[in-house]
């Protein structure tokens, strides 16, 4: 059963230079207890997709389509109603903990704030819960650490605090946006392990550009390019049998896979290429790819790709 179901979602922003088409007709289902990886490069619209689920986008954004969570369309809720969903039902763990944490508030108090708001606990009980959460994300000496400020935490510790904050109200679903970005190799490994442990009983949309990390954590992976989903499959299939030329190119450009570059660069979301969005960079592109737009089709059981090769 799907917990979250996105249909025909379009998210566009007006800017001085034109309309940024960040999300272009996306359909996506996330099942209960599924951990789905959303992979893509800078500017492909993956963060915008995550933000649109809990409606954290500026008011000038135009959003079309439906985002159904437990059957209710999140896009139709009032601001008051969506506030009850945010943090409590669906929590977001943001990238860059250094700027996401309030530098002048004690870490424990920041975590307690959300608990007070959603669970109606008093100050003392909320603080005790915050300490408990810090323990859950394996911050040593949590009682003392809860009374420290973010600058006294290392990068990895701050990320742990962010995770604790996300989990504080025991949400059913988590949207994690690049939680391992900017962390050192050894710290990254610890955070990946932690994320895996704390989400075993949860539903998660895991947004990242790091395929290695997604492979460790996710059950299924979907690949996003220029505001569209190019491929969707279970994690093993994405690595063993990547179907879309972009996924193949992406894998091959990893240093461990031979560092073979994809030619050209990602298109601007203002001025999207005609036909298949990937055709200017694709080695297999022909006349049809330049003019016609391919659909996401099921090529093998539960393995979808958006490419004419399989049509």
């Amino acid at each position: 059963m799907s917990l979250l179901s996105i249909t025909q979602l379009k998210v566009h922003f007006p800017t001085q230079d034109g309309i940024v088409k960040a999300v272009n007709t996306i359909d996506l289902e996330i099942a209960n207890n599924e951990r789905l990886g959303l992979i893509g490069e800078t500017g492909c619209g993956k963060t915008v997709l995550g933000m649109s689920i809990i409606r954290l986008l500026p008011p000038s954004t135009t959003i079309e389509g439906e985002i159904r969570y437990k059957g209710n369309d999140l896009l139709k809720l009032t601001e008051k109603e969506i506030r009850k969903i945010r943090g409590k039902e669906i929590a977001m763990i943001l990238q860059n903990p250094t700027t996401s944490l309030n530098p002048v508030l004690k870490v424990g108090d920041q975590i307690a704030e959300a608990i007070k708001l959603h669970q109606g606990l008093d100050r003392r009980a909320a603080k005790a819960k915050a300490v408990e959460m810090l323990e859950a994300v394996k911050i040593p000496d949590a009682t003392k650490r809860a009374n420290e400020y973010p600058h006294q935490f290392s990068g990895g510790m701050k990320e742990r605090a962010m995770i604790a904050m996300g989990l504080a109200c025991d949400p059913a679903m988590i949207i994690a946006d690049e939680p391992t970005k900017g962390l050192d190799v050894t710290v990254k490994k610890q955070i990946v392990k932690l994320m895996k442990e704390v989400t075993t009983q949860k539903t998660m949309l895991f947004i990242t550009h790091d395929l290695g990390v997604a492979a460790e954590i996710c059950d299924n992976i979907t690949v996003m390019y220029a505001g569209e989903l190019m491929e969707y499959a279970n994690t093993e299939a994405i690595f063993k049998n990547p179907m879309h030329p972009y996924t193949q190119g992406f894998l091959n450009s990893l240093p461990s896979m031979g560092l073979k570059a994809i030619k050209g660069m990602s298109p601007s979301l203002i001025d999207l290429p005609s036909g298949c969005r990937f055709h200017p960079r694709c080695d297999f592109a022909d006349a049809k790819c330049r003019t016609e737009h391919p659909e996401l089709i099921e090529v093998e059981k539960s393995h979808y790709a958006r490419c004419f090769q399989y049509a």
Partner: protein
Amino acid sequence: MLEIANLRKYFSSGLLWKQSVKAVDGVSFHIERGETLGLVGESGCGKTTVGRLLLRLIEPTEGKIIFDDIDVLQLKKNELRKLRPRMQMIFQDPDASLNPRMKIGDSIAEPLKLQGHLNSGGIKVKVLDLIETVGLNPEHRNRYPYQLSGGQNQRVVLARVLALNPDFIVADEPTSSLDVSIQAQILNLMKDLKREMHLTILFISHDLEVVRHMSDRIAVMYRGKIVEIGTANDIFEAAKHPYTKTLLSPSSDD
């Protein structure tokens, strides 16, 4: 080509109670002509400081740096300036390395103008030549850095560095701010250029896989010291130091 011995850099802070940080604590290695030495380590291990010390962008507390039989630390200011064109550095963030108010073409021409070997016509030809070498289009010459992508700007930085025909380049995380598909383009370009122009490179990175791809030998740095140094294969197939093994292991055991 380059040899450093017992290099140390202590940073001190505090007014009343002096605290000193041993950023680089007795580092020695050498780099052969035409070789790429990879320097890996986590943030704060002192790898960037080593790169800066080599070019004498900062003064070491102690140690010796011999570059092509020249004792770099004994040089006077004007002698050092003569040596500088032969030793160049590529920084992490290409957008911050370029003057935002200068057109790309002017940015590349600037070091040539300062050098004064070429007249303006010669510079123009050389700039176009460099733009082509790094895989940009001639039309990019009249653009500003903000109009180009991170990958393209890193190409501009490369062109600027190559303008002076350096022998030795310190590349400090040149691709850490780029996407994987673009990272691959830049790394492959650097490899090609190294071969064609017989460059010697110190390649600093936190990414072991990237370093493996780029380097002949690898030095692993931890808390200001080199804990292991060897050929890329030795490091990957038969790492000896426990820290190197931790870096290499696919998942941690806390």
